[in-house]
């Protein structure tokens, strides 16, 4: 397998070329929190949070300027009603098949097969590219945490772009 793309170095280079100040990446040096699985996956309620800018037709779309809002997506949403919007990645494939950044059909299938105990009643989406890590930490993340706790989610799949 060839080497992974060095995105931080390339984006630093791009910003320098554009005359922008350096981007401040989130760097966490403390050991991450740790919680082993309490139950087998086949008995767990799994939640899904994705940052690829997915919304459902009828909902307000995301905007491109530090949008810290989120959308609540019912687990039985029609895949054809899912939309994608984002300023920073090529949306062609996500609009053709949202499962490339929001694996809802795949997770429904794995729930049906019994690989996961249950898929939580709602998935949560937002649009990444939020330049304020503080607003994510203080506004968006606590709200999403409360949503997950209310739905008694036991394991969470995070799908960034």
């Amino acid at each position, binding site marked *: *397998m060839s080497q*992974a*793309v060095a*995105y*931080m*170095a390339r984006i630093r280079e*791009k910003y320098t070329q554009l005359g*922008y100040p350096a981007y401040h*990446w*989130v*760097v966490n*040096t403390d*050991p*991450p929190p*740790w919680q*082993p*699985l309490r139950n087998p*996956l086949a008995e767990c309620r799994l939640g899904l949070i994705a940052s*690829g800018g997915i919304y*459902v*037709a*009828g*909902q*307000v*779309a*995301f*905007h*491109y*300027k530090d949008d*810290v*809002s*989120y*959308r*609540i997506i019912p687990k039985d949403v029609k895949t054809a009603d899912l*939309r994608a919007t984002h*300023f*920073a*990645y*090529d949306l062609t*494939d*996500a*609009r*053709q*098949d949202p*499962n*490339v*950044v929001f*694996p809802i*059909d*795949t*997770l429904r*299938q*794995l729930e049906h097969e019994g*690989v996961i105990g249950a898929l939580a009643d709602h998935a949560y989406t937002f649009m990444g590219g939020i330049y304020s890590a503080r607003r994510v930490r203080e*506004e*968006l993340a606590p709200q999403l945490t409360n949503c997950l706790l209310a739905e008694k989610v036991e394991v969470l*799949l*995070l*799908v*960034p772009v």
Partner: protein
Amino acid sequence: MTSALDITQAVNPPRAAFLDYPLGHTTGKPCEPALQRDILLQALAAFNSLTTPGCVKRLPFRWSEDDAWKETAQRGPDDRRPRYDTPQYQNEEDRRLAMANESTCRSCTHADRSPVMERTPITATPQSPLR
């Protein structure tokens, strides 16, 4: 899951599964449900197999034989869209539907419209709309 290994390692989550695909394909290729299932199965297996905090499981999938996409990723002209502060719909029909719904939609949650927080006006910066 992640397609940006270095960014995820900097964030240092408890567990991660790395899929070495171009950005915008964190969980697979479009319209390939069998592949998407296989990718997700291997990613979910990391909940059991990873026992050290901060470990990243590398998933054994490759976008293309030659990895040519890696040469151009995040290089060349800036292809990001301007950072408008109004909703950016996939199509006009979505805009019409959302506007008809806006007063009743309970599934769009805007922290910055919450009554307990004063909403600060967001002003566009015409000098650098992409930032």
